[in-house]
C-alpha cells in the first residue's frame, strides 16, 4: 500500500545501493553488474537518464554531491576504483577516476557542502582516502593508512552544524567548523576522524561496542539541535546509537537500539535525523524513532501489519524457488 513507485532498474545483477538526489527527483542505483544507473523518478515515473559504465567490478555504493556543485555522483567499486561522474549539458560522463586503493572500495560519502567538494572513501585495504576538488579538474588526495585493520566498510561525514546552535542565541560570528567523519570497519571499531589545523587527518575517537565487523556507520544529519548522534550496525546483529552532548564532542556513549538475530547491513537517517531505517540480514527494514524519554522505539512494527516495509512480491518469488 505504501509503495508509490517501483523502479525496475534492469540491472543484471544484485543492486547494492540506491540513493535519491538532493531534491528527491533522481534515483541512482549501483549493482554487481558493474553499472551505475540514474533514473528520473519525478511524479512516479522511472525514466532512465544514464547508464554509467566504467567500473570493472561490483559497485558498492553511490553518493550524490550537493547540487551547488552541479550534478555530481560518486561511485565506488570492488575494482578498487572510485569514479566521479558529472552531468555536463545533459550528458553524464566520468569526470575523475581515483585509483589510490589496493583493494575494494566499499564506501563513499561527500562532505557537507560547506567544506567544498570533498569525498571520503573507505577501502578493504584498510585505508581511507579523502579527495578534495581543487579546481580545474584537479583532485587532491589525502590518505589515512591503516584506518581499520582488515578493511573499512563505511564512512559518514559529520554535519557542518555546531551542536545546539539552532536553539542557542544567535552566534556573534560564523563558527569555525572542524571537519569530522566517522568510519566503521572489520576491526569491529568505529573511528572518528578530525582534520587538524595543518590539514592532516587524525583519529579523534575509537568507539568500541560491536563484537564483529561494523557494517555501516551513519552520522546523523543535524539542524543544530544539541545532541550529536551516530548510528552503527554490525555483523553481530547489533545497532548502536552513539550520542555526544558535550561541547567538545569527545564523550560518546552508546545505546543499544536493538539486537537483531541477523547481520544488519545498513543504517540510514531520515533527512533531519528523526527516524532511523535499519536494513537487516532478514531482508526486513525497520524504522526507529527516539521517544520523548530517550528510548528508541520501532515505529514500523511488523507484527501489527502496519508500517512494515514488507518485501511484498519478492518474498513470494523467493518462496517459489
Amino acid at each position, binding site marked *: 500500500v505504501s509503495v508509490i513507485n517501483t523502479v525496475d532498474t534492469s540491472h543484471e545483477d544484485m543492486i547494492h545501493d540506491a540513493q535519491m538526489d538532493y531534491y528527491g527527483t533522481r534515483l541512482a542505483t549501483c549493482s554487481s553488474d558493474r553499472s551505475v544507473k540514474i533514473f528520473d523518478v519525478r511524479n512516479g515515473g522511472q525514466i532512465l537518464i544514464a547508464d554509467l559504465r566504467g567500473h*570493472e567490478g561490483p559497485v558498492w555504493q553511490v553518493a550524490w554531491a550537493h547540487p551547488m556543485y552541479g550534478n555530481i555522483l560518486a561511485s565506488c567499486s570492488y575494482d578498487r576504483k572510485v569514479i566521479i561522474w558529472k552531468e555536463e549539458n545533459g550528458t553524464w560522463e566520468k569526470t575523475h577516476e581515483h585509483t589510490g586503493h589496493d583493494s575494494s572500495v566499499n564506501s563513499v560519502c561527500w562532505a557537507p557542502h560547506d567544506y567544498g567538494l570533498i569525498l571520503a572513501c573507505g577501502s578493504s585495504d584498510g585505508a581511507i582516502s579523502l579527495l578534495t576538488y581543487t579546481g580545474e579538474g584537479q583532485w587532491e588526495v589525502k590518505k589515512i593508512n591503516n584506518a581499520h585493520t582488515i578493511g573499512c566498510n563505511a564512512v559518514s561525514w559529520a554535519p557542518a552544524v555546531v551542536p545546539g546552535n539552532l536553539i542557542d542565541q544567535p552566534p556573534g560570528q560564523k563558527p569555525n567548523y572542524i571537519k569530522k567523519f566517522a568510519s566503521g570497519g572489520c*576491526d569491529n571499531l568505529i573511528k572518528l576522524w578530525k582534520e587538524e589545523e595543518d590539514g592532516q587527518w587524525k583519529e579523534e575517537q575509537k568507539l568500541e561496542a560491536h563484537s564483529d565487523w561494523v557494517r555501516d556507520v551513519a552520522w546523523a544529519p543535524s*539542524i543544530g539541535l544539541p545532541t550529536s548522534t551516530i548510528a552503527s550496525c554490525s555483523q553481530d546483529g547489533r545497532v548502536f546509537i552513539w550520542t555526544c552532548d558535550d561541547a567538545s564532542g569527545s564523550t560518546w556513549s552508546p545505546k543499544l537500539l536493538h539486537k537483531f538475530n541477523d547481520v544488519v547491513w545498513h543504517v540510514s537517517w531520515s533527512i533531519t535525523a528523526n527516524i532511523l*531505517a535499519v536494513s537487516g540480514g532478514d531482508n526486513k527494514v525497520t524504522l526507529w524513532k527516539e521517544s520523548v524519554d530517550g528510548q528508541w522505539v520501532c515505529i514500523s512494527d511488523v507484527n501489527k501489519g502496519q508500517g512494515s516495509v514488507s518485501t511484498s512480491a519478492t518474498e513470494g518469488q523467493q518462496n517459489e524457488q
Partner: protein
Amino acid sequence: PPPPPPDLPSCYYYGSFYDVYPPQYPLPYPPEPGTAPLYYQDMYGLYRPYDGAMSAYAENYRCPEPERPSSRASHCSDRPAPRQGYPEGYYTSKGGWSSQSDYYANYYSSQYDYGDPGRWDRYHYGSRFRGARAYDQRYWYDAEYNPYRKEPYAYGDRPERYDDPWRYDPRFTSSFEEDAELHREPYGEEGDRRSVHSEHSAQSLHSAPSLHSRRSSVSSHSQQSQIYRNHNVTAGSYDPTALPGSFRGDYGYGTYGSDFNGVQAFPEYGYPAGASWSTTGAAPSRPSSPEKFSVPHVCARFGPGGQLIKVIPNLPSEGQPALVEVHSMETLLQHTPEQEELRSFPGPLGKDDTHKVDVINFAQQKATKCFQDENIIDKESASLLWNFIVLLCRQNGTVVGTDIAELLLRDHRTAWLPGKSPSEANLIDFTNEAVEQVEEEESGEAQLSFLTDSQAASTSSLEKETERFRELLLYGRKKDALESAMKNGLWGHALLLASKMDSRTHARVMTRFANSLPINDPLQTVYQLMSGRMPAASTCCGDEKWGDWRPHLAMVLSNLNNNMEVESRTMATMGDTLASKGLLDAAHFCYLMAQADFGVYTKKTSKLVLMGSNHSLPFLKFATNEAIQRTEAYEYAQSLGAHTCSLPHFQVYKFIYACRLADMGLATQAFHYCEAIAKSILVRPHAHSTVLISQLIQVASRLRLFDPQLKEKPEEESFVEPAWLVQLQHVERQIQEGAGVWRQDGAFPPQRPSTPSSEVEQYDGPGPGQPAALSAENPLLVLPLPNAELSSSSVQLLPSAPQTFPATQQPGPTRVPLFPVPPPPGPVEPGPVCAPPGSALGFPEPMRPDL
C-alpha cells in the same frame, strides 16, 4: 623446500607465494583490468572457481577426488558457458599447482606429525589464552562464534545457505560436494576455521599481553604487504590476492590450516569437525579483505520528500527483477501516534489561512484532555493555558485584564478564607453579586468585621464606639480619637480623619488597616499593589497553606493601573514562585500575563521558551510536539489582534516541528511551515539566528518539489524557487558576505517602520510572496538583478497595489504594552529588535483614577 615462516598470516604468505608462481595461476584471472569484464561477467563465476580452487587444492594433497571436476560441471550445466568452462580451465592448469600442493602436503604432515607443543603455545594458545585473560569469556565467545554465524552470508559453501538468501547464490549449488567433502576432510576444513579464529582473536586483541604475537604478525604484515603490493603492480588490478572475500582468505586456509592451527584445534575442541560445523553453520573464516556484499541485501534510504527508498534483495542473475521500491513514509506511518498527533493540528497557523474556529476547537479539546491526563500534576493550570488561547482567539487577540480575571476564576468562584477549615462555611463568594456587595460595603463595619473574623461588631457596640470617638474629638484629642477608632474597628472614621491630618499619620493608619487584614487576603494584594509595592502574594503563592494563587493574580489583572513596572514584576515574580513550587503551567500563565519574552532554551534565565513546557528538561522532553503546537496556537491567537508580532525565538521551534513533519512523511505540510517561518523571518531578519536561516533554506529547498502547488504550474516553472526562498537565500548571502555590516544595519530601525499589521497585509496578499513589498521595506532585502526567469515569475507574484499603511496605525512602536500608557510623544522604542510576545494583551479601556 624450506618451510615458510610459521608466524606469517596465511594470506600474506600466500600473497608472496603467488608472486612466485604467477604463470601457473589459472588463466581465467585476467592479468589486466582491460580484460576484467570477462572476468566479471558473473561475479559468482569468480567465486565458485575460487572455492573450487581451494577445495581442489586441498583435495590435491589430501584427498584427491578425480570425479569432482565433472560432477561440478554437471552441476553448473545450467550456467553460461564461460562459467562452465572455468573449472575446466582450472583443472587443465592444475598441474602447476600440484607442486605447491605437494609442498604443502609435506609441510602439513610434518607439522602434524610434530605436533610441536611449543609451537602451539606460541602461536595459538598463546594469543588465545592471553585473549581470554584480557577479555571476558563472553567476549571471547562472541568473537569466536559470531564469525561462524555470519559466514553463511559471506560464503556460499555452508549448509545454512539452504535457508535463505543463499538459495540464489550459484555458489550454493556448486559447493554441494564440498559439504560432503567437509565430512571427508575434517582436518583440512577444521584447520581452516581454527586458523581464522586465532587470527581473528589476535586481531581483536588490543591489550598488552598479546603484544608479542601482534608484533610478530605486524612485522610480517609489513613485509608481506610489500610483496603484495609489488605483486599488484605486476598482476594488474585483478590480482586475486587483492580480491577480498575470496581468494586471499580462502587460499589462506589451506596453508594456515595445514600449518599448525589445524593440529591444535582438535585437541582443544575435541569434537568431530564436520558434524559440528554443519550444525553451527560455520564457514571457512573471516577473510582478510572480503567483498562487501556477496548476497542480495535489502537497503533502505530516505528521500527528501517523505520517501523511503528500498532496494529489493533480488538476484537478477537468477531471473528476479532488479527492483527498487519507493515507499511513502506518510502511508507507512499513518497509524503511528506521532503522525496522528501531527496531523491533528491545523498548522501552520496563519491569520488568513486558518479559520480561528479550527484553532479554538483544537485548544478546547486539549483543554478537556488535560483533565484526563494522569501525568499532569496541575491539571487546572494546564487547561487554563489552552483556555486562555481559546479566549484570545474568540476575542480576536485582544483581551483586557478583567477578561482574564474572569477566566481565572471561572471554575474558582469561591476561594478559601484563610485560617478556616474547608468544611466550614467560610467562603468569599466571587460571583458578581458578591463583588458588588463588597464594593457597596467596602467601608462598612459589617464587611470588615466579617473579613477580620471579628464577631464583636454588633450594632450597639458600634454606636458606643462611635460615641467615644466623637467625644474625644469634641475635646480636640485627635490622636486619641484616631487610636480609639482604629482599636475599635472604626476604620472609616479613622481613615477620614487621618487623611485630613498629616500624610505620615495617614500612611500609618492605612498600613495599620491593611495589617488588620489576613495576609493572604486578595484584598491585601490589591492594596499593596496600589500602594506601589509588590504584593506579598507574589512570593508566597503556590503554597498549600497560602491558598489559591488565582484570586491574587485576578486581583492584579482586574485592577491594573499605570504602575506597569510593579504590576509586571509582581506577576513575573508570582510566576517564579509558582515555578519554584513545580507549578509550571501556572507559572507560565503568570509570565504570559507579565509579558515575559519567550526566551532561549540554553539560557536558563529565560522565563519561558515554549508555553507550558519546562526548558530545564532534556531537549526532547521539553520540545514536545504539543508544546510547540500550544505555543503556535498562542502566536496565532495573538496575530488576530491589531498588534501582531511573531515570537522571534519561537520560529526555531516551528522549524523543528517542520522537520518532524517532513521526516514523518508529511512533506507538504512541512514545506508550508517553512514558508510561514520564512515570512516571519523576513520581516525582521536580524532578529533570527543565522543557523536557523541557513537550515531553513536547506530543508525548504529539498522539500520544494513536493509542494502540491507545483503541480499546478507548468513544468519549466518547477525550477523557479518561490520568492520567499529566493529572498531568504539573499539574506543568507548577505550574512555570509559580511555579518558585521549586516548586523549594524539591523540595529537601525527600518526606514519605514514595519508595524505588525502591515506585515500581515503584505503577506496575505494575492500571492505566496511579495518580494517587492519586502524589498521596499527593508533595504537588506533588495534583490540583486534577478535573472530573466526569476523576474518573469516574480512579476506575477507582485502585489499591484502600492504599499499603504492603515491610517489607524502609529508608526514607531510595535511594543504595545499590557498596561495603559499615555500615547508616546514619539517613537518610544526605536528599533523593535526584540518584539514582545504578549503584545496583544492591550488594555484599551481607560482606567479609573486610582486612590
